[in-house]
């Protein structure tokens, strides 16, 4: 009815149609503007809402990147003490089996049998016997001017340098200490032999104990009872040494224990850094970690490393030189070689590690080694991000600032919701002293970490 009336009116007054069209078009334009703005506003609100829902934190920042553990690949050399169970493979992982050692009596403070023979006087020294090319020469000497020197020759030369006979029948430990020089020697070229009163036993191939040209320090506490005889002798056997090769011996000291009253343990491990994976120029420092247990809490234990500059085992320059006092349970002991690491890593990546007690004492301590490993710390920074928000975050910017510098790095890291992600940058070196690390997300949020 109403529609019929309206149609009749419109037929009578045609101007009404124009008004309706104008109003309708205006409404369409207003609607277009309104909907456009509402939709855009919705989109921007969505952006802001997503920004508000982001929840990111930096949970940890590590200065330096650690290598995997470098483990002993051969049996430990026990220069004082004895191995009682297990082998070196038991020290390659925490838990499981372990390798155990016991302190044995040392004679370092007992009776001196050979007193730092340096071959400075008449050749051969009294009681010594030299065969082959052994001679007193001054081209190599660890102490003084001369050493006992064996020069090789075409076709190979051999000869023995034999110590005087020593009465060791009244002891339970003989302490042998000398320096030897390696010049282009091969395995099997230079042997250390002991005489038990009836036969000579080849005790060590010295080139396998320590290789590389130069002087090497050999120390050993001999506790094998077969050598506690009245005519104990030591000899160095130069075996088929060729021209251009030579071996030297210097500063020979032999003492025997006056009685089983003091005990000590000294073991050495051989570790090698893969320089292809960890070039020397990328190394920031080196760490040594030990997990061990003893049955005596009265003496400290020390980790040392072979200093290739001074040719001695030392802990000079380590972050801690106080040693570790055992608790009678499993203890962790770690040392960092700090900036001095270069003195302790040979050019081929070799690191020789020593575990030694504080000093000889009256108790024969039992030591179990569960883990002994070396690891390299490279330059770089590792950040750990934790996203506890409901959205994936895209990290686009990383800042490292301190009082003097503001370093900016572009990054491209996605961290899923409820995920913790480790981010490694080898080109970032944290500043010394206090610093702040800031990470910025693509939506504009920031997470901050302060460290020093």
């Amino acid at each position, binding site marked *: 009815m109403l529609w019929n009336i309206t149609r009749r009116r419109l037929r009578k007054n045609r101007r009404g149609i124009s008004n309706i069209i104008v109003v309708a*078009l*205006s409404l369409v*334009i207003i609607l*277009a*503007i309104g909907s*456009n*703005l509402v939709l*855009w*506003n919705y*989109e*921007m609100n969505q*952006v802001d809402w997503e920004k508000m829902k982001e929840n990111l934190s930096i949970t940890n920042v590590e200065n330096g990147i650690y290598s995997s553990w470098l483990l002993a690949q051969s049996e430990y050399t026990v220069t004082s003490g004895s191995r009682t169970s297990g082998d070196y493979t038991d020290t390659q992982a925490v838990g499981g089996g372990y390798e155990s050692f016991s302190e044995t009596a040392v004679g370092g403070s007992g009776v001196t049998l050979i007193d730092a023979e340096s071959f400075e006087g008449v050749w051969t020294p009294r009681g010594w016997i030299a065969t082959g090319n052994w001679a007193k020469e001054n081209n190599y000497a660890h102490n003084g001017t001369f050493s006992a020197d064996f020069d090789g020759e075409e076709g190979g030369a051999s000869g023995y340098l034999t110590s005087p006979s020593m009465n060791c029948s009244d002891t339970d430990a003989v302490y042998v200490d000398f320096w030897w020089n390696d010049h282009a020697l091969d395995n099997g070229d230079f042997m250390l032999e002991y005489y038990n009163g009836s036969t000579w036993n080849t005790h060590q191939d010295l080139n396998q104990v320590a290789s590389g040209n130069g002087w090497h320090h050999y120390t050993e506490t001999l506790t094998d009872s077969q050598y506690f005889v009245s005519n104990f002798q030591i000899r160095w056997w130069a075996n088929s040494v060729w021209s251009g090769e030579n071996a030297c011996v210097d500063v020979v000291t032999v003492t025997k224990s006056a009685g089983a009253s003091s005990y000590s343990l000294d073991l050495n491990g051989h570790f090698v850094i893969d320089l292809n994976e960890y070039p020397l120029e990328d190394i920031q420092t080196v760490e040594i970690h030990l997990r061990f247990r003893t049955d005596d809490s009265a003496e400290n234990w020390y980790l040392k490393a072979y200093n290739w500059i001074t040719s001695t085992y030392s802990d000079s320059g380590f972050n801690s030189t106080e040693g570790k006092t055992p608790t009678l349970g499993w203890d962790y002991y770690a040392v960092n070689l700090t900036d001095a690491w270069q003195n302790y890593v040979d050019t081929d990546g070799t690191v020789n590690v020593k575990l030694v007690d504080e000093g000889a004492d009256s108790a024969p301590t039992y030591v179990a080694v569960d883990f002994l490993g070396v690891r390299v710390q490279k330059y770089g920074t590792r950040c750990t991000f934790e996203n506890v928000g409901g959205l994936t975050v895209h990290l*686009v*910017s990383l*800042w490292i*600032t301190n*009082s003097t510098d*503001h370093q*900016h790095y572009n990054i491209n890291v996605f961290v899923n919701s409820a995920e913790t992600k480790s981010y490694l940058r080898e080109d970032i070196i944290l500043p010394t002293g206090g610093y702040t690390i*800031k990470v*910025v997300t*693509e*939506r*504009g949020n*920031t997470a901050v970490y302060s460290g020093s």
Partner: protein
Amino acid sequence: MRKLLRSRRGITPVLSSLLMTVIAVAGMSIAITATYIITDNLHDNMGERLIVEDVWFTSDQVSLYLRNVGKVSVNVAAVYIDRVGQPFTALELEQGEHGWLNVTCSWSVDSVYEIKVVTGRGTDVVEYYTSPS
């Protein structure tokens, strides 16, 4: 045609209708253009988002690292430090871009400054920052 030529009054309604059509089309064009301009400006204003990632107080200069996290490009039009306009190097950031905005001004150690960055569309980012001691 003959009828039109005979009756001159017949052409008037045609002309008036054509004129009205032209006027209506022109009006609509103006209205649509105005709509586009108005909505586009509102779009841009609503789509601006700017954050200050870092503030670095250096010698006679305060440097702000800005990141455009909005949906449109941003042009920095003014920088105020403690409500005083400061000279700065021009900076325009496209969507997702970032860069340093260097503001030339002297500052005192261990002081709090209110720094406001204003864009060409009027969006501002204002925050307080402490200078190093």
